[in-house]
């Protein structure tokens, strides 16, 4: 049974120095948690993006909470580059651990299986591998001839945070075909999920929803956040508000602009309350 929390209480589960896992922009990002995380202020985070990062990790970087970002890309999609990330790279104020999408997936898969590493083709001869002392080139033990292959260590985050359409009273969460959300939950020590709504009937009682459910076993806590992925989209529910993402891309280009964007959002929140 998972606990139902407020967003602020959920944010307090994140402690300084933790490894925090976040999903790709289209999979279900808990944008509703971004402000509470910034207000809570737990810093020195190692953020790992499955497999790429967008607006949320960019805002956490802008707020100075991120020490290391591990990802295969940082992008706002059609709105362009991630502005706070770009600024932090230029200033050398963040440690970037470049990866490639299937390598991030491989690291999560190894953690899910409780094994030390998973192997992956490709990578040999890239500058990504050259800058990853934590990855090892090993020889395929089953090959008759030399066959180098890259071993990717398990990625075991302290906490994963994402947004999904629906949970039930037991804390089961429906993720449909967005299986990367299951990877996040399987690999992470604790998983915090915001949802559009909580339903009374068990999601496991109907085979049609059960197949797309992460059982409560993997879910530490749930919080309700209506339209909790906005301005990003949530599959099957609503599309992204690209005007708003583009406004962020524009305004966050400078440190002052990013602060003004945050302040503006604060005023909007207060007005709504």
């Amino acid at each position: 049974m998972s606990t139902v929390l407020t967003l602020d209480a959920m944010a307090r589960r994140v402690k300084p120095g933790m490894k925090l896992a976040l999903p790709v922009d289209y999979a279900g990002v808990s944008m509703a948690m971004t402000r509470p995380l910034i207000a809570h202020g737990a810093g020195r985070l190692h953020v790992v993006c499955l497999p790429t990062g967008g607006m949320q990790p960019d805002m956490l970087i802008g707020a100075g909470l991120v020490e290391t970002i591990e990802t295969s890309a940082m992008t706002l999609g059609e709105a362009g580059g991630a502005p706070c990330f770009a600024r932090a790279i230029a200033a050398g104020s963040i440690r970037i651990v470049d990866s490639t999408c299937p390598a991030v997936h491989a690291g999560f898969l190894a953690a899910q299986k409780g094994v030390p590493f998973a192997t992956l083709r490709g990578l040999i001869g890239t500058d990504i591998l050259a800058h990853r002392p934590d990855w090892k080139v090993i020889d395929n033990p089953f090959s008759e001839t030399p066959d180098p292959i890259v071993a990717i260590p398990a990625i075991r985050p302290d906490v994963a945070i994402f947004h999904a359409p629906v949970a039930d009273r037991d804390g089961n969460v429906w993720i449909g075909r967005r299986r990367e959300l299951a990877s996040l939950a399987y690999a992470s020590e604790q998983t915090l999920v915001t949802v559009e709504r909580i339903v009374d009937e068990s999601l496991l009682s109907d085979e049609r929803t059960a197949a797309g459910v992460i059982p409560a076993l993997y879910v530490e806590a749930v919080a309700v956040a209506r339209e909790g992925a906005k301005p990003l989209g949530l599959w099957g529910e609503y599309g992204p508000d690209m005007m708003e993402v583009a406004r962020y891309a524009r305004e966050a280009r400078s440190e002052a602009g990013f602060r003004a964007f945050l302040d503006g959002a604060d005023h909007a929140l207060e007005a709504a309350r």
Partner: protein
Amino acid sequence: MSPVLPRERLIVAIANLLDGVRHVAVGASSPIPAAGAMLRRALAEAADAPRVRISILGSVAHNFFTNGSAELFDCAGQGRIDAFFLGGGQIDGEANINLVGIGDYPQTKVRWPGSFGSAYLYFVVPRVILFREEHSPRVFVEKVDFVSAPGTSPEGVHRTGGPHALLTGMGQFSFDRERRRFRLTSVHPGHTLESIKAATGFAFDHDPVAAMTADPDARVLALLRGRVLDELAETYPEFARGLSAELAA
């Protein structure tokens, strides 16, 4: 029928490069490759050729994956994807691509989003089409500053895939994996061998007189302007509208 637009020429060139594929995947934010793949599918249907499957990331109607974002890579690793598209902030004469940045890593003076799946897909997708509309010396460099994915690999490294062609706004190249060199195969109307040389930071092979990129025939153009633009509007409404407006002008 209105004259062929430069972007239509690129879409048709991509459809031609995809001749014979069973399954082509297209990454996010790639309207021209997506249109080329849709045109190839339409052409295969019209010719009663084997069905062409398309997986367009970011599309709902043209994507049948159900196992999250890992499925594309699992599929590619098994050899179930025949063709894919990669670009690059920099591409060099040995087909190495750089999606990371310019200058000394990690504190690069220009930082791009990152390598995405390129460091894997370039190795395992047989027909990788390098596509970059901008053809300039800052893109096509002698040597990339960072290798996101190498054009070729030494003997003994598992490599079932790699560069098949390079398509730009000025022309089309093939790639010789043995000699690790591009060869100019055609020049788009409005450009010349000399202008391409001036815009390319690396040396490449070419015939003494370079061939011009042929115009698509009326049947292909009709498929592109009809069915393909309709299909494209689901994933890339802005791009489809823009192209339609340009055709109506």
